[in-house]
């Protein structure tokens, strides 16, 4: 077994374990952290496939940004685990049956000849001056420019949708109005009142 293979199996098994942990852990914060670990492991696997750009993007975007945000949300929301688990025991047997069946089918498919290690040619490693990022960019902006642009539109849509669903102006909420703040003059805010002195009684 080569060093590469050993590495592959290490990362793969961690990936599977951590993915399992995401689903099974009781504490949602722990689940989120396990997901982070899963991302790391898949990034490592991509790295081994010479997909450096994707690997780094995965870590930067998902681990660095998305998951952190996600952790915040999980911590801020009060998720009642106990209530969510109601009926779990009842549904477990059916769930297990379905899962086993699913696994059986998957096994049937992947045990076929297409996915055995020998069926795919061993990729030849690229030369040292091969730039993964550049190649990806070339593909994205030529062959796949249409879906790529569409992805941009989807992001725009996501922004619009998110705003549409969350932005609300409640009655009575207080807002700052910076455009008014900057144009205020002293006269608007300070009123000098001359208070006449009164003689003591």
């Amino acid at each position: 077994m080569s060093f590469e293979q050993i590495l592959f199996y290490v990362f793969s098994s961690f990936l599977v374990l951590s993915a399992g942990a995401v689903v099974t852990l009781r504490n949602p914060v722990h689940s989120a952290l396990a997901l982070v670990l899963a991302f790391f492991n898949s990034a490592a696997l991509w790295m081994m496939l010479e997909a450096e750009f994707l690997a780094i993007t995965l870590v930067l975007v998902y681990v660095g940004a998305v998951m952190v945000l996600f952790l915040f949300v999980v911590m801020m929301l009060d998720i009642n685990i106990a209530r969510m688990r109601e009926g779990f025991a009842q549904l477990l047997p059916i769930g297990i049956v379905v899962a086993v069946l699913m696994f059986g089918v998957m096994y049937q498919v992947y045990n076929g000849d297409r996915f055995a290690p020998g069926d795919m040619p061993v990729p030849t490693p690229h030369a040292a001056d091969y730039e993964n990022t550049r190649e990806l960019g070339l593909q994205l902006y030529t062959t796949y420019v249409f879906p790529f642009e569409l992805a941009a539109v989807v992001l725009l849509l996501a922004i619009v949708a998110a705003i549409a669903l969350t932005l609300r102006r409640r009655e009575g909420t207080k807002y700052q109005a910076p455009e008014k703040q900057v144009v205020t003059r002293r006269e608007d805010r300070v009123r000098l009142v001359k208070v006449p002195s009164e003689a003591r009684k």
Partner: protein
Amino acid sequence: MTESLHNILVAIVLAPLIGSILAGLFAGPLGRKGAHTVTIVGVAIACLLSMYVFKRIAIDEIGVFNQTIYTWLKSDGISFEVGFLVDNLTAMMMVVVTFVSLMVHVYTIGYMSHDEENWPEGSGAGVNSYQRFFSYISLFTFSMLMLVMANNFMQLFFGWEAVGLVSYLLIGFWSVRETAVFANLKAFLVNRVGDFGFILGIAGVLMYFNTLDYASVFAVAEQHKDLTMNIWGDEQWSVMTVICILLFIGAMGKSAQVPLHVWLPDSMEGPTPISALIHAATMVTAGIYMVARMSPLYELSETALTFVMIIGALTAFFMGLLGLIQNDIKRVVAYSTLSQLGYMTVALGVSAYAAGVFHLMTHAFFKALLFLGAGSVIIAMHHDQDMRNMGGLRKYMPWTWGTSLVGSLALIGAPGFAGYYSKDSIIMAVGASHLPYADLVYVMVLAGVFITALYSFRMYFLVFHGEPRMDEHTKEHLHECPRVVTWPLIALAVPSVAAGAVFVSSMPFGDFFDGAIKVAHEHDTLAHVGEHFHGWFSMFLHGFVALPTWLAAAGVGTAYYLYMKRPDIPAMIERKLSLVHWVLDNKYGFDAFNQGVIAAASRGLGRFLWKVSDLLLIDGLVVNGSAKSVGLLAAVTRHLQSGYLYHYAFVMIVGLLALFGIFILQ
């Protein structure tokens, strides 16, 4: 030449139809005068053109016209067409139908002029009833023409049903009278029985000949002579016999032969003009015409011919007897019609088709005359039809009296009158027949002559002679009917006298119907009789020494004695022979049997089918049952939609798994 005839024939058929449509659908705008004008003009056109066609076909002998006018549809190699077959037989029928129809149209103007009195106040059906009546009789003329001019069974059936429909409508014309409604329902139902046989017969023709065209069927009929069929069991039936008898069952319904005759006396509930037109002169003879037209088929089955003959004889004799005890003037004429139809049927049975059709023609004239005469009396009597309230009308209604006398003499077969020639031909033909039971039938038809004379003159004497028995009020208003009534009577009286002598040498004893009617040599009774035929005048003279004439004279004499000299005797006979009178009074129990057994059983069956098979099985189990089970299923399956998200997700997964199960693991 045929081309112009083509247009003329279409015109003959369409003229009454157009008249009928105009009078029926535009009753309001046309008004009474407009309605009877358009229909009379339509029928008059048809009548004149029919005469022209008769001249061309029968006298100029330009040949048979047989042409398809319009192909309705073709299905599975069989054409359904409208086509005309016009030969001497058809031409004669066309003239008879349109002429009598025209007379009746004119007569109706007088008869129906006060029709509004027949409807209760504010009756919706009474509105425009006058126009509707004209529309119906024109429609009848159209239907009857379609029937007689048909060159295929499909059109024959159309005409057959159409005249039945109009007959139904007209019998029940006064739809506010319960008896009229009962009568038209009865006519309809009884005819249904006949028509069922008729359509089975047509189906048989279609099955074995694979065509509906007359000419094609007749051309190959001979080859099918020995075919047999299996109806049930192992019994083999001659196809020809089965088809002929089935067709004849249709004729029995339409031409009111025993035992399907029961509707005809009741049909007298209709207005008298249609009794004359439909139930005496034309429609009821459709069966006779049809059998004559089918002679190439009937000639192939002696069994069928015997059957026809016996049915005819039974009708001729027993229905005549019933005429003796009727008091309603129209019913007497109705029973005499039944009896005369029986004579025609007997003629068909002994293969004397020509004599039968000849009698059909003469009968059409004198029976229409008698009916219209009776109608004239009824008008004068303010729609009282009971002969016991009449008497002595001769001096009030000379024209009606004279024409009725002519009609009666023609009916009983007084030498020289039309009926003499036709009826005597039939009787002689029966005498010459070799069919089984022909001897018995001969006796029955001879006895029928006596009976005919007896009831005819009983009616004549009761109505026109003796002491007037009507109440004073009626008596004061007695007077001859207007000319629209009397002229048709006169016009019909002429052929009632003359038609026999004019046509006797050509129709029954000549070659007039050659080509139209086919008689097998061994059945040719008329040819046998014809050997002794030496012109109309010698036949006329022979009449004074022939047995039927003496029987008729005896009948007249008896009637005179019983009803003029000793009116007490009939009452005494009635007492002495109370059983016979009871049987006759109940019309041999046909009506009781039909209503008590057949109708009751049908109602019982209908009730059973309604309650059990319709309400319980079909409505309950099939219709509502399936609807309910669908509803139940819907109510159950809607609970699949639980509203829980995880259920939905689960269903998706299970669906996915099921698809895998079906399509991957197989």
